[in-house]
């Protein structure tokens, strides 16, 4: 955590990602999760890098731990991690691995990498916050291919039945699921009583409106559609 928050914006995320990779192969437009994570941290989440242990903070869970460069770039831009640490990406002594570890980086809510774990943890987190009467929300980002893991569907079914209003799942859809989702991804959530919104995953205003939506009696799914994975 930095003492003084950096004054960095969306336009800085490109070079912050380049710091991690040492080149410019991964421009912002090539990173499927970048805009969703930016909008969450810039406009939605009630969190402060100076109070990362606030029990009533909103939680962001990157379930799809693969390719966390965009995540680290946003965390650096928002003052959760030192920009200098980005240069150590993947090194033995670095806190920033190719999959995030919450125990190495204060502010990262879950350690992830193996697919299909984040949403179940998010359900438990939302249940715990509800039991504690906390107003905090839980946002969990998964990928469209990650949804192939059956554990997600245990979580989707239960969260709907439990009416977990403080839970939101963002599915970044870059059509990387080999077998696809006949009927659409949103329908998998809707049939389990989630509210759903399908939006352009690069449209910040559209993402903000979709992510800010909260119903009193059900969890919310946002399908953020981006360009197909090359």
């Amino acid at each position, binding site marked *: 955590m930095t003492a003084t928050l950096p004054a960095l914006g969306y336009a800085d995320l490109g070079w912050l990602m380049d710091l991690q990779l040492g080149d410019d192969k991964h421009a912002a437009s090539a990173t499927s999760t970048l805009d969703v994570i930016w909008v969450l941290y810039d406009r939605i989440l009630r969190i402060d890098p100076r109070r990362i242990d606030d029990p009533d903070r909103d939680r962001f869970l990157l379930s799809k731990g693969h390719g966390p460069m965009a995540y680290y770039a946003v965390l650096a831009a928002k003052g959760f991690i030192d920009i200098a640490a980005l240069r150590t990406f993947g090194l033995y002594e670095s806190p920033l691995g190719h999959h995030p570890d919450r*125990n190495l980086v204060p502010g990262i809510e*879950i350690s992830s990498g193996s697919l299909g774990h984040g949403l*179940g*943890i998010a*359900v*438990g987190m939302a249940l715990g916050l509800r039991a*504690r009467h906390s107003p905090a929300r839980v946002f969990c980002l998964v990928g469209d291919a990650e949804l192939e893991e059956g*554990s997600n569907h*245990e979580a989707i079914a239960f969260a709907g039945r439990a009416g977990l209003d403080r839970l939101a799942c963002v599915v970044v859809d870059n059509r990387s699921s080999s077998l696809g989702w006949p009927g659409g991804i949103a329908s998998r959530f809707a049939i389990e009583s989630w509210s759903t919104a399908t939006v352009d995953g690069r449209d910040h205003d559209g993402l903000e409106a979709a992510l800010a939506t909260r119903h009193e009696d059900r969890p919310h799914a946002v399908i953020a559609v981006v360009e197909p994975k090359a």
Partner: protein
Amino acid sequence: MTSVTNGPMRERFYATAADLVDTDPRVAVVIAEIGGAALFAAKRRHPDRVINVGIREQLMLGVAGGLALAGLRPIVHSYAPFVVERPFEMLKLDIGHQDAGAILASVGASYDSAASGRTHEAPEDVALVASLPGWSVYVPGHPDEAEQLLRASATTDERAYLRLAEQANAVPRSVERGHMIIERRGRVATVITVGPLLDPVLEATADLDVTVLYATTARPFDRDALRAARSPRVVLVEPYLAGTSSSEIAEALVDTPHRLLALGVPNVEHRRYGTWRDHNAVHGLDAAGIRARILPFLDAA
């Protein structure tokens, strides 16, 4: 809900877990379509903290991890195969890798539901949990001990596996997390036994000049107690996979020449039904079977 006969240790667990939910606002119980009357009554009083996720064992562990990260103390409960084996990666990642705490309380032990066959047997559960870093493993031998261990663990944030069984010893001991109890002192060998196999071991060794150590904490293994016994002959009698704690004994006695006889459930597809008593007898884990294998070990040079 799963329809089986609940033994006294299991009923004590339900009553104790319900009391913990009533008295400690941190405690939450997560189940997957299993439970007893006391727990269901607690669910009616505390619907936010007694959570039945349905037959979704991966979710059961994920929910536990999330509850812990939100500041609660989750107690997860199901049959051993469904709380350890099916969601094993969730133990590793959703609990351990997050550095979250939880108590996993299983029933069924190695073959309490032997009539249900292999699908409901889990003699390998302790070895699996012990293969992950930072887990305590408790194997009570009496309902009173199960309650003592559960209540003690509930006050911490540790990762714990509490293994409940139908088989129980006649008289409870006053147990303490992490420590073996010296049941008897002798000169020829040290016999270490775990949980519900204490009574059969005491019967099997009644006339033998052996030290008997009683463990209800399988991990961390009480190496100090074994070293203090100072015996070059060690017999390990475990109610789960044979040899589960052999490496612990090797570590404890790394600088001491010793011989080890490790008794437990053999690593085979047994393909027989019946009761836990039938299986204990076949595997040599009743008093007669234990004695029959200890005697030649002690006689050997």
